[in-house]
């Protein structure tokens, strides 16, 4: 199963490193990353594979959200299906 990770917030050193580290810790494989900084704001979108994730997806969502909060970032993990449903016929 694939999920989409989105990260939005003020740019700072080490955002990608900390997000990837955290994901690796739960055995989540990163498939694709697209990232940009707009007017000082960091936005990143990752496609990840959560099939072998060591915790429940709902739990991972909570952990990543907390990780983000500590750095003043909004980090969301959502199942890919919802974006597919909305944007594909």
């Amino acid at each position, binding site marked *: 199963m694939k999920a989409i990770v989105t990260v939005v917030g003020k740019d700072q050193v080490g955002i990608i490193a900390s997000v990837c580290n955290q994901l690796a810790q739960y055995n989540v494989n990163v498939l694709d990353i697209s990232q940009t900084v707009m007017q000082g704001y960091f*936005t990143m979108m990752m496609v990840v594979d959560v099939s072998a994730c060591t915790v429940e*997806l*709902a739990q991972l*969502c909570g952990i990543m959200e907390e990780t983000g909060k500590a750095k003043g970032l909004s980090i*969301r993990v959502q199942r890919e*299906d919802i974006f597919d*449903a*909305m944007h594909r016929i």
Partner: protein
Amino acid sequence: MLNRNDIFQTLDMINKRHLDIRTITMGISLMDCADRDIEVCCQKIYDKITRCAKDLVRVGEDIEKEFGIPIVNKRISVTPIALVAAACEADSYVPIAKTLDEAARSCGVNFIGGFSALVQKGCTASDWKLIRSIPEAMAVTERVCASVNVGSTKAGINMDAVAEMGRIIKQTAEITSDRDGLGCAKLVVFANAVEDNPFMAGAFHGVGEPECVLNVGVSGPGVVYHALQSVKGQPFDVVAETIKKTAFQITRMGQIVGKEASERLGIPFGIVDLSLAPTPAVGDSVARILEEMGLETVGTHGTTAALALLNDAVKKGGVMASNHVGGLSGAFIPVSEDEGMIAAAEGGTLVLDKLEAMTCVCSVGLDMIAVPGDTSAATISAIIADEAAIGMINTKTTAVRIIPAPGKVVGDRVEMGGLLGSAPVMPVHAEASDLFVARGGRIPAPIQSLKN
């Protein structure tokens, strides 16, 4: 492959435009709970609801997290109690209402619908008992919602029931006068009620429905409003097309959530109700969508046409997004639950007569309207009759949810709290309809040809 614009568009809708799944509602048949002894009947009802719905809230919360979309309400609808309780040897169905309330509390849902009777052609002894139990039931319970269907296109309008419902609404307001007549906010009078509606207060689990089913109600006035801001000044073809596309996206969200929830709960997926349901939050208003089409204030001339376009475009866009669309599907215009409607009613532009015209083209009816506390039962019955007639002739669902707020006069405001919002007290005509309502009997079903 998804592109980043699509992804950030979806996130924007959820984070900034109030896109949410308004409700996942589990419909449960209580037909097998009938018993001569009302206590046994109550026990069977409690056991069945708590067994079927024990995982509803947990599953809803899990899906919320995984998909990252809020599911605002988890609710239950049951078979109309007038049918379930018909076998009981009891004078009042209040004990059943209390049982429903306890079952709802134990499952963690905020509303349970189905304290209902379907009396479009006539009332059984059980229907009368249920109707007369409504005021007390609304006063002693917190989460139970009641509804009565008094008319339909096929049966006409049961004017005896209409007359009684005027009195019942007055009694319900009086018995809950310490809470500004809040009981009336949980009581709907329908014509052409639908059996698979997931939205409260009018949800019940119809007799043609399966044992247990999951229905979903989506929302998203804020998303539609935002989409229309990008087509300012353009012709209505563009407006309609924009609404259709947005409604498609919103409904897809409901479809995927409903499918996932029904699979996890091991019950069939019923329908997506693709209604635009507003909340009192700024930016989540149906009224503001109509104003975005070019009206200075909702309720002015042009409002009915704007609403007709909106209602139709929402349906057209949503139908293709889901394999089963049902419920009330369209635009809701509840006054107290819509910040733009409240403003227009307080400013005096939106009056009851205009709202009635709007109900000819919207998906429901006169919803969450506060009127002065001294409004007579006959006047309320006459308002119900007007609304039922619109539904009957136009082959659509109409409803009346009206609060004759005790001790309040025009200009006052009634606070309901939460999603129910606050309603400005609106004026009604002072001229009496008593003799009209006192006639009783039935208004015959209308002819379905020679349409003009």
